[in-house]
């Protein structure tokens, strides 16, 4: 299988998305300080050679990169959705509204 420019472009898109996801690991500090970042960059650099022999290695790297990306995305999406839909105790106002009542107006402060 020939090394195609399309595969190279997809690899870069995945890398960009990965770095974006890694920003959420430690928000506030640069993702470049993370071990994961350094490891991924190292893998990408050592697979830069465009030759048929290392095509398989590049395929494997791309698959791993995609897997790690969907892992990070899945975790973040799951957490975000949980936060959005998690139940909370009803406020006093909501409880009153359930039976058609309204809270009395509290007197104005002087």
């Amino acid at each position, binding site marked *: 299988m020939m090394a195609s420019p399309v595969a190279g472009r997809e690899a870069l898109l995945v890398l960009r998305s990965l770095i974006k996801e890694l920003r959420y690991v430690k928000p506030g500090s640069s993702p470049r300080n993370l071990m*994961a970042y350094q490891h991924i960059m190292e893998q990408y650099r050592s697979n830069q050679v465009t030759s048929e022999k290392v095509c398989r290695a590049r395929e494997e790297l791309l698959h791993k990169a*995609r*897997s790690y990306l*969907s892992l990070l995305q899945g975790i973040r*999406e*799951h957490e975000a*959705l949980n936060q959005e*839909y998690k139940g909370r105790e009803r406020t006093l106002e909501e409880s009153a509204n359930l039976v058609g009542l309204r809270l009395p107006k509290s007197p104005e402060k002087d």
Partner: protein
Amino acid sequence: MVFQKLLIPNFRTVLSRHGNQVQHQVPIQMKRFLKDPKKFYKNVSISKADGLFEINLDKNKLKTPFGTLFRVPTEPLAVAVATEWDSQKEMIKKHSMYLTSLCNTAIDNPTERSKETVIQSVLRFLETDTLCFRLDEPPELAELQTNHWDPVIQWFNDRYSADIKPTTGIISPTIAEETLENLKGHLRSHNEWALVGIESAVHSLKSLILAFALIDRRVDPETALKLSWLELEFQVAKWGRVEWSHDVEFADLKARVSAAGLFIHMVLEKTETIQKMTS
């Protein structure tokens, strides 16, 4: 078919003497394990010892739920696990640490099953493989299933000298003894850690065929999950999506399948290192 709750993250399964039964009354001491603990460390690092990799949370070494020293056979896996611990905020969300869970299961083997038992359990999934059960209506769904699933089955049959055929009935198709023996042999060639990942993938995808396609890198984790959810996605497109149910579950499964795939690829062919761990 009874699905055993095999991969319970960081949860001490209380085993009775007569089998793997979880007690229904949760003792007070156990409830501690059910709550998310506060993050008790600042820095996460990895260190190498005896050819294996350990995780350090500040000055403490990470341990498994059973109290064993947490050690993994490869550096990429250690880095990924360390990142899970590093990305925790105020509370430690154990349920979101999928790679840590897989490692814990591999190290502790909480259900105390032999490799052969695990292989049997994995193979049994073939009898109820999602890809094998087809609907004949609505015709659009039947067509979707044919177009998306038939090529995967074809690939599987060619690659593993199998003879799997889909059915529109409800009775499991009988699988040739030879096919089962072939697949058993193939699964036996994997080390115990890889099998933990494979079992997780099969469970999450509800399909052995899709799990194998993932292992062989024929599909990526998200594609594998979409194939597994073909019918559900079809119904949802027709009848409407319930975000707090569908999307939540999809996100969780996406992470699970991705973790399983990544885990498998990171421990494949590390049999020697893994054997050294148990000796």
